């Protein structure tokens, strides 16, 4: 298994990323297909929510990945600032777009789920508002890191922004405890769940499936950024 420093070499990273990208995508798609088939056609309706409980199997993975992606950006930013790992900022930039898409999907699926369950598409409560803030923070990071790259910046400002934005993660996580919200409290943890297994079983499949596809997209975007940087460096050498 290559170490973090061995992967700092883009050529070595690409050697690993090229075969890994289709493996992650296709295995993620298979797991997702199993999970979605189970969630849509196999699980029974919930005694209280009825058929709309099926939205949970896409809402929870999109929420987890929307938040987890920002943790990835923050971690990459720390690695970049402390060790100057050349691929760390590339990884942070590559994570931002899929992170924003998953964060946006969490908001949209939550809103669609909220209408028949709560009787409203949107409520300005702690969980929903803090998640919406995270979505805007993603947009800010993408704009900032793009502007920094175009102006030949060293990536320090987006990295600091990436770390500062992580303050939202515990706020989102504990918003249902700190404030009286319409959003339900935590019903699933690593060790226990208040949801019956007959309804819950497709969730690990959709969670892992979405995660692997997310990983494949991050690798594709990292490869894009590295290839673009290489092409630009070549053009600069030719112009000199």
């Amino acid at each position, binding site marked *: 298994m290559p170490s973090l420093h061995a992967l700092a070499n883009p050529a070595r990273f690409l050697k690993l990323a090229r075969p890994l990208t289709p493996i992650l995508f296709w295995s993620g798609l298979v797991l997702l297909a199993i999970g979605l088939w189970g969630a849509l056609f196999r699980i029974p309706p919930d005694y209280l929510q009825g058929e709309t409980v099926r939205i949970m199997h*896409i809402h929870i993975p999109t929420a987890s990945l929307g938040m987890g992606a920002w943790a990835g950006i923050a971690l990459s930013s720390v690695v970049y600032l402390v060790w100057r790992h050349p691929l760390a900022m590339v990884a942070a930039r590559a994570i931002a777009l*899929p992170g924003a898409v998953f964060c946006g999907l969490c908001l949209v699926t939550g809103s*669609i789920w909220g209408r028949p369950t709560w009787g409203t598409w949107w409520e300005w409560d702690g969980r929903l508002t803090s998640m919406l803030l995270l979505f805007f923070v993603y947009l800010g990071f993408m704009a900032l890191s793009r502007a920094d790259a175009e102006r030949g910046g060293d990536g320090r400002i987006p990295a600091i922004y990436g770390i500062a934005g992580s303050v939202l993660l515990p706020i989102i996580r504990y918003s249902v405890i700190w404030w009286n919200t319409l959003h339900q409290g935590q019903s699933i943890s690593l060790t226990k769940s208040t949801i019956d297994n007959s309804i819950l079983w497709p969730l690990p499949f959709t969670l892992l499936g979405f995660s692997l596809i997310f990983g494949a997209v991050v690798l*594709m975007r990292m490869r894009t950024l590295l290839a673009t940087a290489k092409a630009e460096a070549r053009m600069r050498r030719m112009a000199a």
Partner: protein
Amino acid sequence: MNPWPFVFGAYGVTFAAIMALVLWSWIAMRRSERK
């Protein structure tokens, strides 16, 4: 209230957005690696 339009709406939006993201990322990667 019929729940199925909400269920299929949520699944449809998610599937379409993720497939668009994958396709866009793949096309961008192929284009930049070919340069």
